């Protein structure tokens, strides 16, 4: 290759208490290259970025910039050395003009020369083909243009390396194309771009090389043109195509007969998932499969109305109902165990007991509190039933392990006599023993007549529990798989082909 290496990272390691976030990772960025950094949650992408930009200090390894070893202590320092970062959330001020956003915080004179600043900004915007006027207030620009202005600011600070951390996640297709045009223009100027995204199609459209990380380890660096999608997916998920063998411990329960427990037509939400149809029958376990960011969580959140529902029709037992808020969903017997346990699920300072009876209390009415004795009875029953490991029912939930916190939230839902329970990544970050316990519980609940939707990043876990998999890609349902002898291979093929047909 003619292109020169700008940034080289060798044998980078970084540990946090209890986790090895990066383990001997190599990374190389060349001049005028768009390099996609790929991996599922916890693969170490953002840790790697933060090591480059000086947010984290590396434990071991060597970083060289233009052949010289470097060691940044702050993002500011990285910026001064030509490494610009544009984050998913736009770090600009909406109430200032476009030109001000490009130059504020950089000048050393106490007086603002508006004329000169606007002229400089106009030239820069023009040279990058950004459709904005320097004197326009930033809030009047579309998100894509704002993103581009952030990039223009970085470019003007003489950056040779541009890191784009999921810049496209809130853009529509036209806006993505505009952003890509800008990226290509920068590439032509010799800027090396590190691009992080969850959208596979975008990676294939724009990138020259792909580096895949998994569980903090480097899987490899590939030329985009010579890495088929299906291989990329299997590298990200970590199972080689040939030797996928699933051990089927449980026979999935399925019954398609009769009126579905829950049925949605054309459901869509403000979180940006395309309108979709969905049904689930009594005693069925199904799942949304797809990569991170494919829209699987957004879909179930739409069912539970955890995000603002923007369209569609919902039927429960064939009767049309309105579900506009989570409370409506709960009253119709739907439960949801969220992906973000800390933010959406537990109330950290309350005791295990109070966390368990929380939803039941809401249903009963806030002004008719349970007596301590009643609450204690419920709590004890479920602590035993689900094998929750806690010193007493009065212990604050924050001192429990992740798996046990998850069981407490499960108990909370089971107490309310649900008909339909949605589990979004219930096994993430918990130990293997508890994982298996939760899977077993899912099967047991289904045979007891409950309907469940189960989502997991680990496909084999879903294959073991679900009788029907709805496959998603880029926020759209691309297909459905059913049957008892599905393999991860089938799922990955469907994800890879989905976008193309």
């Amino acid at each position, binding site marked *: 290759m003619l292109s020169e290496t700008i940034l080289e990272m060798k044998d980078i390691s970084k540990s946090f208490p209890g986790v090895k976030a990066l383990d001997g990772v190599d990374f190389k960025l060349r001049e005028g290259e768009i390099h996609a950094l790929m991996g599922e949650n916890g693969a170490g992408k953002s840790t790697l970025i933060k090591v480059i930009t000086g947010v984290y200090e590396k434990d071991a390894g060597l970083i060289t910039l233009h052949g010289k070893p470097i060691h940044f202590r702050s993002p500011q320092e990285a910026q001064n050395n030509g490494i610009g970062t544009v984050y998913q959330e736009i*770090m*600009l*001020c*909406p*109430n200032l003009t476009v030109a001000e*956003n490009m130059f*504020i915080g950089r000048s050393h004179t*106490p007086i603002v020369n508006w004329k000169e600043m606007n002229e400089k900004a*106009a030239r820069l915007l023009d040279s990058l083909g950004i*459709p904005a006027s320097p004197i326009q207030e930033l809030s009047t620009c579309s998100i894509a243009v704002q993103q581009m202005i952030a990039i223009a600011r970085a470019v003007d600070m003489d950056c040779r390396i541009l890191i784009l951390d999921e810049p496209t996640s809130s853009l529509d297709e036209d806006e993505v194309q505009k952003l890509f045009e800008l990226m290509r223009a920068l590439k032509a100027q010799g800027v090396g771009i590190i691009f992080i995204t969850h959208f596979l199609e975008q990676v294939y459209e724009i990138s020259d090389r792909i580096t895949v990380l998994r569980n903090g380890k480097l899987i490899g660096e590939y030329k985009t043109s010579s890495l088929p999608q299906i291989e990329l997916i299997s590298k990200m998920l970590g199972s080689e195509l040939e030797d996928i063998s699933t051990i089927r411990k449980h026979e999935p329960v399925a019954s398609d007969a009769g009126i579905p427990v829950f049925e949605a037509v054309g459901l869509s939400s403000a979180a940006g998932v395309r309108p979709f149809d969905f049904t689930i029958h009594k005693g069925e376990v199904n799942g949304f499969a797809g990569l991170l960011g494919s829209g699987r969580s957004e879909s179930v959140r739409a069912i539970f109305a955890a995000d603002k529902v923007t369209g569609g029709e919902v039927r429960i037992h064939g009767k049309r109902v309105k579900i506009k808020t989570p409370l409506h969903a709960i009253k119709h017997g739907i439960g949801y165990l969220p992906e973000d346990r800390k933010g959406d699920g537990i109330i950290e300072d309350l005791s295990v007991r109070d966390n368990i009876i929380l939803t039941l209390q809401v249903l009963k009415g806030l002004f008719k509190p349970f007596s301590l004795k009643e609450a204690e009875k419920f709590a004890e029953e479920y602590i035993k039933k689900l094998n929750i490991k806690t010193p007493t029912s009065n212990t604050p939930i924050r001192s429990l392990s992740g798996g046990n916190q998850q069981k407490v939230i499960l108990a909370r839902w089971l107490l309310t006599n649900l008909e339909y329970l949605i589990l979004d990544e219930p096994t993430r970050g918990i130990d293997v023993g508890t994982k298996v316990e939760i899977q077993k519980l899912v099967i047991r609940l289904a045979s007891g007549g409950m309907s469940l939707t189960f989502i997991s990043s680990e496909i084999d876990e879903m294959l073991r529990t679900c009788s029907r998999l709805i496959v998603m890609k880029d926020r759209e349902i691309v297909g459905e798989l059913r049957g008892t002898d599905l393999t991860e291979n089938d799922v990955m093929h469907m994800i890879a082909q989905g976008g193309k047909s």
Partner: protein
Amino acid sequence: MASEKAIKQKARLSNSNLLFLIASVIFVLMYLFAIISYPGSFLQFQTFFDLFNLNAPLIIMTFGLCIVMIGGGIDISIGSVCGLVTMACAVYLEKRSGSIAGAILLSMGIGILFGILHGYLIAYLEIQPFIITLSGLFLAQGLLTTLHKNPLNVTMPAFVNLRDFNIVITWLGTRNRLGVFIPCQIKPGTIIVAVLLVIFASLMKWSRFGRNVYAVGGNSHSAMMLGINVKRTKFITYVISGLTAGIAGFVYIMTTGAGNIGNAAGAEMKAIASAIMGGTLLNGGVGNLLGAPIGTLTLLVINELIRAAGVQSNFQAIVSGLLLYLFIILQSIIMSLRDRKRFTVALPPWLHLSGKGQA
């Protein structure tokens, strides 16, 4: 490519300017209404100047408050600090060693001290500005009553001269019923208002500090990521607000000539109302310093109007309260209409940015 002129046409009025425009239009309409209803008093230039002559302290306080509010904060101690300064000046001037220059320094010193205290606690220790400045309000009030309980008239001759000093504009005025020409008179406080207006409006528009205040008020996290020293910027806004409260205190006693426990009591609330009516948003990042006097004058004209109508004073408060509601609702309606427009209405072709439609 689109010509630059085409791009410039597209730039919309910023929120700050829009709100300022609304405030100005409302003020002008209000004043026209006043002139039409009571030509006898409102048609006189002196009435207009008296709005400034009698309310200079309030306008000066509003300048500092506006800057704090644009930076995303609030300062409710200014009224009490202003009151404290009047009494401190009165006590000091009644001493034999007192001098006017000393009194000016004392006023600004007290104000700046409160500003530094509040700024430090709010910016560097990150405590809620409302609570901190509420404490400041009580502290200043307590100090005021401790200083001197009874009204204190300043009798120092030099000061009395200053108090009674008026700038007479010989070419502007009105004839009274007897046909005698009465020229307009402007008090020194009005001059101070004008000077401070120029200083602070320029500061906010053309200085790096001023633009940083807007950035911090718009989104303080982003401002930090953009390389702005957020804490220092916030700190300085409170120092400025303390300083203007101090200056306001001196102008107050220069107008009334006496220290009194009731001086400038509740002025902070009037200042907040004025700032909002002048187009400064409570959430920060939006506002225009020129709006500060406009807002104050609007509030005052409302009061004058009600008084001229001969309504009882308790109704004055009710009516100004209701008008404030109306004004704020109007502001938010206009702002939200504007946002919705952005999402639904497509740009007309002659404003289109890509330049394809250019002939």
